[in-house]
């Protein structure tokens, strides 16, 4: 019995040593995995002149912009690795401020490591340009001159008035909600464009294959031009909509379920199933729906 115990005691130190080493390694590994991979969060208040321009360039992650009072831009951002950093440049006269995410020299961050998340408060009267690769862009309650561009990120804009909005998207979806009295120019190659309660003196949307959905009254006596190659155009109008509407598809089809009065004079001869035209109420806004092969549908709300 004693001999057996001694044998056990003789063997035990080796085993214990191995176990301890294993446990220590596992513990260290766990600590490393649990800790954020060099995540950095920063906040700053940046001066910008009235009427100045804020430019943001970010590849992956997200960009969120909303309005604030005062004369400073409040910037809050998080980068998720030490392989990327955010550069901040301000012109001497404070008219131009740029925030740019970029990889450090000789670093090749992964998609996750390259992410930077921005949350920015912009005072009124500051123009904004945002350019991203895959980062979604969310804009709420801004005003002024706004340019948003993303290759594959979704672009969402809400609660904007009396502004000039320019949107560019390659495949990301574009959504505008409650954007009024604004000049809007949207180009999207493959991303769908959804407009809800969007009005203004000039609303232009063009896509290659992305669908276009419009829901609203087209008020404001403006020009609404929705154009696509192969995407569908769906327009839903309330009975109160005052529009002078034409819909034409070169090789696609058109459907109208909205009560329109026939026009006494058309610039083209409507073709059954290919085009139609008409007015409702006083026809104060001009609406042109054009597609090459996509289907066009106009419905009553």
């Amino acid at each position, binding site marked *: 019995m004693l001999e057996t115990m001694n044998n056990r005691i003789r063997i035990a130190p080796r085993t214990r040593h191995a176990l301890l080493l294993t446990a220590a390694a596992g513990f260290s590994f766990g600590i490393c995995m649990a800790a954020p991979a060099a995540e950095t969060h920063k906040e700053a208040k940046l001066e910008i002149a009235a009427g100045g321009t804020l430019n943001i360039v970010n590849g992956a992650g997200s960009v969120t912009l909303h309005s604030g009072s005062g004369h400073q831009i409040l910037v809050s951002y998080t980068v998720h690795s030490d392989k990327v950093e955010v550069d901040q440049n301000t012109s001497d006269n404070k008219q131009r401020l740029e925030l740019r995410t970029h990889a450090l020299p000789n670093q090749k961050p992964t998609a996750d490591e390259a992410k930077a998340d921005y949350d920015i408060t912009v005072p009124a009267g500051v123009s904004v340009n945002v350019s991203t690769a895959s980062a979604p862009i969310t804009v709420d309650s801004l005003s002024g001159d706004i340019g948003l561009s993303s290759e594959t990120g979704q672009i969402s804009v809400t609660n904007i008035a009396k502004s000039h909005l320019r949107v560019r998207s390659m495949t990301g979806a574009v959504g505008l909600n409650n954007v009024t009295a604004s000049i809007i120019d949207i180009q999207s190659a493959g991303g769908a464009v959804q407009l809800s309660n969007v009005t203004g003196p000039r609303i232009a949307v063009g896509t290659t294959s992305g669908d276009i959905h419009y829901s609203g009254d087209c008020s404001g006596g403006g020009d609404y031009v929705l154009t696509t190659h192969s995407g569908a155009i769906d327009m839903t109008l309330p009975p109160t909509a005052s529009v002078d509407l034409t819909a034409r598809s*070169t090789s696609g089809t058109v459907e109208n379920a909205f009560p329109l009065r026939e026009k006494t004079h058309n610039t083209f001869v409507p073709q059954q199933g290919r085009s139609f035209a008409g007015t409702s109420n006083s026809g104060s806004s001009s609406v042109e729906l054009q597609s090459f092969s996509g289907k066009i549908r106009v419905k009553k709300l």
Partner: protein
Amino acid sequence: MNCQQFQEVLPFIIESGGKGDDESHLQTCPSCASLVQDLRYIAEQAKLLLPMHDPNPRVWNNIEQSLQREGLLPEGRMSLPGHSQKYSTSQQAKSWTPLGWVMALTAVLIFTVVLINYKPKQLPPTPLSAQNSSAESAQLNSDDQQLISQLSEQAPDERSAYESSLRDVNAYISDAQQAAERDPEDATAQELLQNAYQQKEMLYQMATARSLP
């Protein structure tokens, strides 16, 4: 009628000679004319290879005997009365049917392969052939390929999105161009064309901005 439409009715043309539209296309399209000439020649040669006589009676006899051996055919059922005695030895000696069958089958195979693999020669675009060139122009031109090549190095993840978008927009441009050419007074066609170019400009701007150091 363009080349693609012509080739869709090609079997009918070879068989029956075609209609007026087909003939007019043949007169204006040397590529299709050459194809039809080749196919007609093959068809004529194939006819010459078809057997001039019935198969050798030995073939029928062998088939009959095999079927009878396997119990699939009662004795005498297949043989026509006097069939096996119908042909003289000299007639049998003149028959080249097995070889003819092989050659005929070979000709038919060649004919099929030619039909499947035929690709018309690239001709300068004409108004007729341009009608259906949207798919062709969905290919990337040299500028596009250069752009994609640069993106492959800098942004491999985005490459396919750009490639697909460029193909789509090229098809858009092609369709809009044809619509505008068909009716130069068509304002909608002009606007579609303008929008198509805007789309392509946008893609180039995005890609260029990305590729800047």
